[in-house]
Structure formats: C-alpha cells, structure tokens
C-alpha cells in the first residue's frame, strides 16, 4: 500500500525526466560540454592531434597583438554597421508603404521575402554571376544609369561593398516582416486622432509610428547586429574559401574557421570564439539598457 502511494507521487516527476531525457542529452553533449571545453581549450596550445599544452593567457594576449585580426575586426564592423543600418532604414520605409490596403500586396511581400528562404550558398552563386565585371547584371544596371562600372569581387576596394549589397538584398525581407508585425500592433485610432489634429505624414511618423515601433526597432538592431557580426557562408562562398583579394572580405568567424582548420590552432580559435561571445554580450546588455531608456510602450 505504502509503496504504491510513493510510486504515484514519484510518477509525475519520473515521467517528466523521461520526457526531457532525449533533449537534455543533446544539450549537454553538444552545447554545454562544448561550451565548457571550449573555454578550457582557449588556455591551451593544441593542433587537435598531438598533446595539448597549457599556455595560460597567451591566446588572449594574441587577440591584442594580432594585426590581421584587428584588420578583420574592422572589416566585420564595416560589414555589420552597413548591412544592419541600410537594411533597417529601407525595410522600415517599405514596411510602412506595405502597411495599407494595396493591390498586389502579396506579390510585393513574396518578392521581398523570397531571398530570405533561399540558401545563402545559392544566393552567393547567383551574385557571383551578377558581379561578373564584363557580362554581369550589376554593371549592366550601372551602365544603364550612366554610372561608372566596378570590378566588384575582383578588387579589394569593392569586394566588401559587393557582399554588403548582396546581404542587404538577402536580409531586407526578414526585417520587413518583423516591422510589419510591429506596425499592425499600433492602434488605428492613434492615427485617426493624429489626422484629426491635423498632423501631417511626417509628424505622424516621428510622433506616433517611430516611438511605438521602438521595441521592434531595438529588437531588430540587436538581433541583426549579432547575426551580421557572425557572418560566414557568403564570405566563404563569394571568395572561394579565401577571404577575398588581400583578405579584404575576411570576417571574424571566417578567421576563426581558418585558425582552427587551416592553421590547426584550436586554442587561439577558441579564444576568438569567446571574443565573439563577449561582443555579442555587450550588444545584449546594450539592448537591455536601450530598451529601458528609449522604448516607448503604449
């Protein structure tokens, strides 16, 4: 009698643990353990084959001394700021235009969103051809507009710009969708009130739309920045795995990959990984701070 009673009491927790077991194993083996292990590796010199050697903070010291890394962090910063800022402004403008009853709204929305679901490898392959200096779409458009043509991926001066333009095209639709979701949450009667008070479109945008959209805006700035900072696929594919002419398109995660799998320096690569995490954390803290200061809730 007594044993049945305690069994029933234990039954629910045991069921819960059994249900959690498969995902828990996955998290521990492939996320938690690697996280801890990676931290440990960042204090070692190790080529992933022979014995490792403890070298203290030397990998972290190298982060400060490595001029290649500093150049690459600069590239990554330029890429991140350009892609995030330009995409945000364009997406907000388009989302505001799309946030009304229009014919063919579905066609607009689908066209903007298609690049988002497309494999970045396929996107990069298509844009490599778009950027062909002689027969590509990009230079054809520039010539049509009467502008000077560019060597795009073939020159260190323009290679990063080429990737930035491509990634603005690719991420635009995602930003539009998130903005549209934010815009539909703004109450209609606020706009009606503003129009009754004689507010013009510009005043309405600055006084109603933008403040009430600020949670969406902060969310998008932070998540897009963290995402853009970790860019890898297009960097790899567009440069054939080389990082562009004179390292001009190499980014920090690309550099991490090269350190681990070409230079076989797992320790230094792990230190770079934690640098990436630290930068992402700075942005997350910034988000908390900004959302407290800026964000207007209704």
């Amino acid at each position, binding site marked *: 009698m007594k044993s049945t009673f305690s069994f029933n009491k234990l039954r629910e927790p045991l069921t819960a643990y059994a249900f959690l077991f498969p995902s828990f194993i996955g998290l521990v083996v492939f996320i938690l353990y690697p996280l801890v292990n990676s931290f440990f590796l960042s204090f070692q010199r190790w080529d992933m084959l022979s014995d490792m050697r403890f070298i203290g903070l030397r990998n972290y010291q190298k982060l400060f001394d490595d001029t290649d890394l500093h150049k690459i962090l600069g590239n990554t910063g330029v890429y991140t700021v350009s892609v995030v800022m330009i995409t945000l402004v364009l997406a907000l403008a388009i989302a505001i235009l799309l946030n009304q009853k229009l014919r063919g709204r579905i066609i607009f929305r689908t066209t903007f969103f298609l690049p988002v679901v497309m494999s970045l490898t396929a996107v990069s392959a298509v844009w490599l051809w778009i950027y062909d200096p002689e027969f590509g779409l990009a230079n054809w458009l520039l010539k049509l507009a009467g502008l000077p043509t560019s060597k795009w991926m073939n020159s260190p001066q323009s290679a990063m710009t080429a990737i930035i333009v491509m990634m603005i095209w690719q991420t635009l639709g995602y930003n539009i969708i998130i903005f549209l979701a934010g815009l539909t949450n703004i109450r209609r009667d606020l706009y009606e009130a503003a129009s009754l008070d004689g507010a013009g479109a510009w005043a309405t945008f600055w006084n109603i739309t933008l403040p009430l959209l600020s949670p969406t805006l902060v969310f998008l700035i932070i998540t897009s920045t963290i995402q853009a900072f970790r860019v890898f696929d297009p960097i790899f594919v567009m440069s054939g795995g080389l990082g562009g002419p004179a390292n001009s398109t190499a980014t920090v995660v690309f550099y991490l990959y090269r350190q681990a799998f070409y230079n076989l320096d797992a320790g230094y690569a792990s230190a770079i*990984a934690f640098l990436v995490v630290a930068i992402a954390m700075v942005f997350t803290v910034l988000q908390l701070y900004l959302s407290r200061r800026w964000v207007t809730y209704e």
Partner: protein
Amino acid sequence: MSNSRPSTVNSQQTADSNFQLDWKKIASYLILIPVTILVGLPFLWMLSSSVKSPAEIFIDPPRWIPNEFHFENFMLAWGKAPFAQFFFNSIIVTLSIVAIQLTTACLAAYAFARLKFPGKNLLFLLYLSVMMVPTQVTLIPNYVTLSRLSLLNTYAALILPFIATGFGTFLIRQQFLSIPQDLGDAARMDGAGHLRTLWHVYVPLARPAIASFGLLAAMWHWNDFFWPLITTTKVEMRTMPLGLQVFAQQEAGVEWHLLMAAAIFVAAPIIILFMLAQRQFIEGIASAGVKG
C-alpha cells in the same frame, strides 16, 4: 479625446482623408513597383541565365529572353557533379533532424507545460539559455568529439549535434500552455497516460506552432553550409549547399548557365515549401526573431 467630436466634423474629415489616401496610394505604388522589380531582378537573372546557351550568356547588353530555351542545362548541371547523391544526402539529413527535433521538443515542451517536477524552473532556464550559445563556440569541441568517435563523413555527424532544440521547445511549450488544461485532464481521466495525452490531445491542437517550427527547421538545415563543410571531406557525403559551393569553385568554371541551373535546384525545395505554406513560414519567422 477625438472620439468625442461631433459626427458631422468626423464625416467631413473622413471624406477628406479618403481623397488624400488615393494620392498616398498612387505614390506608394510609384515607389513600391520599381523597388520590387529591382529586388526581383536577381531571380529573373538567375532564371534567364539558367536556360541560355553558353554563347548567349556572354552577350553585352544581356538578352533577358533568350532566343532558344535550353532546358537541358538542368540535366547537364545535374550530371556534372553527383547532385543526385547530394540531394539524397540533404533529404536524409533534413528530414531526420526535423523529425528528431519535433519529437524531442514536443516531449520536453509537454513536461515544461504540464508536469510538476523538482528543478523545473532551473531546467527551463537552461533550455532557454542554450539558444544564445553561438555555434562558433561549440564548433571545435563538437568536431573533436565526432572525430574521436570516427563519425566524420557520416550522416550521424550531420544529424547528432542537432537532436535538441531550445527554440523549438520554447515555441511549442508556449502553444501547449494555451491549450485548456481540462482537455488533457479529461483524457487522463479516461485512463490515457501522459504519452497518449501528448500525442492525441496536445500535438493535434498545437499543429500551427509545430508546423511553423518544422518548416523553419527544414529551411535552416537544408540551407546549412557551415556544419557539412566542417564534418565532411568525402564527395559522397556532401549536402546540396556544400555540393553547390564546390561546383561553383571547381566544376562549373565560367559555365554560368550551368551554375545558375544548379543554384535553382539547390534553392527550389525550400522555395516550393515556402510558396505552399507562406503563412506558417512568416508566422514562424515573426515569432522566432532570434536564431543563430
């Protein structure tokens, strides 16, 4: 305040704003149509190039509608690299990951939504926080683990690291919480165990969230380039995106028409899926926000 104004003024204003609205709409079309065409051009460029002859590819200015349609380019590209094998690999890997993630996430979501057990809050916090661990940090140890188990160049290497999903668990748990508890209790009164209740009551009722997450997971893992790049070195283990990258770099050369054809069949499955289930995709994306 404005609601209290006399209705005559209101109707006057409405008529006014209706007139203005038309101009606003015309201006919107004048901006949106060219911008949409510009955004659509790379797709048209890809489609148009994929059916051109090698000679017509290299014409300046480009001819958007080719003189002859060379649909055999798709067969040619498909045969130039083992794309049939890559396609098969991608299908196996994507379907396995989606099926496994849906199973582990539904089980965990049910535990978090409906069961009482010690350590629940702490465990939930753990599931949430792993969402924020970037793949770059886990990269090297996971590579080493799989290499020590001699699993590199196997399907296991491509699938195992993704058996658990913090994001999927969270999304499905939210949906489970919105299901009235009475429904599950009624099933339990009829003698159904938790597993049966989950399968017969919760899963059918949470179908929208489950479908959204399944589609997103399919997209992410079909399109994944980074992990196959690291864990496979053998040609026969490549997935579609990796196969395409190597094709672009080595086999295609300057045969842009074949590369465009190949890009189309790499991207097509997810684009078709998106066309069929646009609403679920967009709702999933809008609710997802964070990923990476």
